[in-house]
């Protein structure tokens, strides 16, 4: 059938009165060349996994993640969870993060927000009043006195914030050079030696977790203290938290009576801004609806 088709096409393409050439030839296309092309396409498809392995190897060679040699990111899945009810707003985590990672002044890889929900006005018909949020210097020095008189406060609480380790991270999606990437172990990293400093990822992060580092002139963010966790240590903020509001663990290698597993099992956990479809992974317990 294909021969007939080729014959018909050949006649059509050569026009009437054309003689002398092979009837099986359509322009430069022969059965052999078609088969060769098909074999090439099949070979290309088969070679794709190998190409991906090579690409991963090149990326591993070029990307700087501060992980030690021998660390295999595919064998871990790191996650942080936050217990809002436990946070006392001391700000030690913010300070520890800044010291551990050399975060410039006025920039934050993690911070604490204080939410103060006022009582509703008399006969307002509302269940609660206005919400006042603050985070002076990221909460690094703790918090001053409540911004509203105590008698007017319905409730108040602290919320630690950090990179939400999104599964469909909009920040890595928009990076024009792939300088920021999702590591297989759950961390979202930035290669500061490769970032061009366009700021697209900072705009794309709905949580305000990224900032433009005025020293390196690149995008910067929480790495979960990648240089620590890849060496078996906890992130600095988790290590220093006096109230154990931050729980950290490896979902692929739970330890005996794993705090992270226990936390997730015993609490109703929520994620931030899930409606945006970013797939945030950082889990919060005790989150109020006013938290964004």
């Amino acid at each position: 059938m294909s021969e007939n088709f080729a014959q018909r096409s050949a006649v059509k393409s050569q026009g009437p009165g054309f003689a002398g050439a092979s009837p099986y030839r359509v322009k430069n296309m022969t059965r052999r060349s078609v088969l060769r092309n098909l074999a090439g396409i099949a070979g290309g498809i088969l070679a794709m996994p190998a190409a991906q392995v090579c690409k991963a190897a090149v990326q591993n060679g070029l990307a700087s993640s501060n992980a030690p040699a021998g660390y295999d990111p595919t064998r871990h899945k790191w996650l942080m969870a936050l217990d809002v009810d436990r946070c006392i707003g001391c700000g030690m985590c913010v300070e520890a993060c800044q010291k551990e990672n050399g975060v410039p002044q006025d920039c934050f890889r993690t911070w604490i927000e204080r939410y103060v929900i006022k009582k509703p006005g008399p006969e307002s018909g509302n269940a609660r009043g206005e919400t006042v949020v603050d985070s002076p210097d990221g909460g690094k020095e703790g918090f001053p006195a409540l911004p509203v008189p105590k008698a007017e406060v319905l409730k108040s609480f602290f919320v630690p914030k950090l990179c939400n380790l999104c599964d469909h991270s909009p920040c890595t999606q928009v990076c024009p050079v792939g300088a920021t990437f999702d590591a297989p172990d759950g961390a979202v990293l930035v290669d500061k030696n490769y970032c061009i400093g366009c700021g697209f990822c900072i705009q794309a992060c709905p949580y305000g977790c990224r900032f433009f580092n005025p020293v390196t002139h690149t995008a910067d963010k929480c790495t979960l203290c990648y240089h620590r966790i890849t060496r078996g240590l906890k992130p600095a903020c988790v290590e220093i938290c006096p109230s154990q509001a931050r729980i950290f663990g490896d979902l692929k290698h739970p330890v005996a009576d794993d705090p992270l597993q226990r936390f997730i099992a015993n609490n109703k956990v929520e994620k931030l801004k899930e409606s945006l479809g970013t797939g945030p992974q950082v889990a919060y317990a005790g989150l109020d609806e006013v938290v964004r």
Partner: protein
Amino acid sequence: MTDTNMITNLVEAVPQFSGYAYPNERTLHPLWSALIVVYPYVTGLVAGAFIMASLVRVLKVKALEPIYRLALLTALAFMLCATLPLLCHLGHPERCFEIMLTPHFSSPMAMFGFVYAWYLMAVLLLELWFDYRRDFVEWSRTEKGLRGLIYRAFTLGVTDLSEPALRLDAKMGRFISIVGIPSAFLLHGYVGFIFGSIKANPWWGNVLMPIIFILSAVVSGMALCVFAYLFLCWTRRVVADMQCLDLMVRFLFYALVLDASIEGLDWLHKLYSAEEGIETMKYLATSKLFYTLLIGQACLGTLVPLVLLGAMQLGGRGVAELNRRRIYFTCTALILTGVLLMRWNVVIGGQLFSKSLRGFMTYKMEFAGPEGWWLPALLLVLPFAILTVLIKYFLARELPTIENVVPGATPPGRA
């Protein structure tokens, strides 16, 4: 205390944000400053000017032939500067070629690099070359010195002026124009997509954003062509071809109607659906962006030209030519300013509120420094300087050939 210190302290004394903003958002400047306002503006002018030129080639609108080359040269002048604002804004401009060498295909910004390269290399330069080739050959024979050398170089050694060769030039020019129209839409659609794809920002994350950007680009580019044509006629003391001018303005008016309708629809939809963030947007439109959005963009940049140009469509023939030209000039200047303000409202306006939707930031623009007034202003003037050089070399009135003197225009005495 020095003056500089005093000014710095004064600027720092003014609150940078009100309400609550995430700590990383509390900066004096928005991350994307006035340079990023200039970037989509200039790119839009390129796309619009090219569409105007394409009307001649693709739709064969004979009356617009006089401005064909001017429109193409305008597109080229602005195209050469289109990436400069972005480049100047990068934290590491020396790494800019990574966008082309190791592109991240899911990023609109990376794709813009390719669309830009395609548009510049495969569309604009090629179309200009095919259109100018015959003239280059002729000018290289008649002109001496540097000019002669430049024209000779631009022939690229192809000096065949036979009938079939010229026919091929014309055919190729038309083909590239046809390819160029979707390319121009793609070019500016992508710029709109850069903003429209950011779902974190309710001001930007909008499916209509690329369409709004394309339409406003067409409007601004067409307005620029009218503006440049009138300005060129004025500097050369010749009277513009009114038939051509009236037709250009008619197309501009249609484009403006479409653009205003879609932008109006966008706002109507925002207000009606009243999704999260609408209160923030309403507050911005009526306070921080009142002058640039409601007065500048909506009234002066859109409504006034719509009314004036609409009136000219209805009863323009009765208006004296000189007055018509004055009205056209005023309207195009207003439209050009209005579209610049639209870019400002999108880029800066989208960064004047916190993503927590609980607070607002302030943008205080300095004069000096990399984020000051001077650099965006320079980058807005630079394409006009380049256009002047291009006109001098490729649209000069003393060049002995067909349509090079703002063709169609007549000296004032004969008007």
